[in-house]
């Protein structure tokens, strides 16, 4: 991680090129962690894994711990009581991390809008990509994945690693 901070430094001529290469690598090797909440949307992911070759789109096999993941897929309606668990899972993920809200239920509560459901996981954690549909079709999910990869490729390395503020002792 140290080399990225050096490359992202102010006057580094290699910064832009290195950022492009790093972002390209990141967008092609996303490791998802799927946050199942019990909705039908969470089953879609398993079908997607079986029916289409997601490795070609840069999605690795889902991992079983949020500590090794860099993409959090929230699938299904989120209870008000589960909100703390989602926050806990998100806090364990290493930077940089991205979040995809899958399905209407995760985006704004969907058909389950009532006193017990959080209307949109964006109230709990920052969401990068929302995939609509109840349940979303395979094409929607793949389009959402493409959109996420585009977001990753267009990032600036210096945004991720801002130069350290000069400490107050020197002044």
């Amino acid at each position, binding site marked *: 991680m140290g080399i990225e901070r050096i490359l992202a430094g102010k006057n580094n001529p290699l910064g832009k090129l290195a950022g492009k290469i790093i972002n390209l690598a990141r967008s092609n090797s996303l490791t998802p962690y799927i946050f199942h909440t019990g909705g039908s949307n969470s089953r879609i992911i398993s079908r997607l894994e079986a029916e289409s070759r997601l490795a070609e789109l840069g999605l690795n096999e889902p991992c079983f711990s949020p500590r090794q993941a860099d993409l959090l897929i929230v699938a299904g309606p989120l209870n*008000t*009581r589960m*909100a*703390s*668990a989602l*926050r*806990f899972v998100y806090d364990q993920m290493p930077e940089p991390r991205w979040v995809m809200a899958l399905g209407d239920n995760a985006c704004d509560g969907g058909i389950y809008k*009532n*006193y*017990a459901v*959080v*209307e949109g996981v964006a*109230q*709990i954690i920052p969401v990068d990509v929302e995939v609509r549909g109840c349940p979303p079709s395979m094409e929607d999910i793949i389009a959402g994945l493409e959109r996420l990869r585009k977001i990753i490729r267009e990032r600036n390395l210096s945004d991720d690693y801002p130069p350290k503020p000069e400490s107050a002792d020197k002044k």
Partner: protein
Amino acid sequence: MNDFSATLKKACSEAILAEQNSPDGIVMTIKADKIRQVFETLAGRGTSDGRMLLTDISAVNIEENDCRFELYYHVFLIDLHLRLTLKCRVEGDKIDSIADIMPAALMPEREIFDMFGLKFRGHGNLPRLFMHNDFEGHPLLREYPLMKRQILLEQTKFE
């Protein structure tokens, strides 16, 4: 079937206000303060072996004529193969618990307390069942705001 309802009526004549036959079984309207008497009679019926299931207890928040709640006790009598629904209207927010006669009522009574705030006298353990402990109000009451959300952001500590 008729024998059974006649026996029950004779045993607790004050408690039963009305009786109605439906395709599924019998619906009886009973007084809320006599609910324990009815269940004690049901549990120790003289005519049969007294085996029965308390399938569920459901409630509705009605606000008419000083009655706040209407409770439905869904009972299945195994030997007679008869479904019996006991209907009672509750004034105020307290009713006697039947959990010591029918242990199957423990969870439904807790659920009704959680959703409606109806307190069961004599129920030993009556904390919230579904909603978290910081939740204010009871969500299925008519006075609960439709769009009010109470999101739990701190980790729950399970004891």
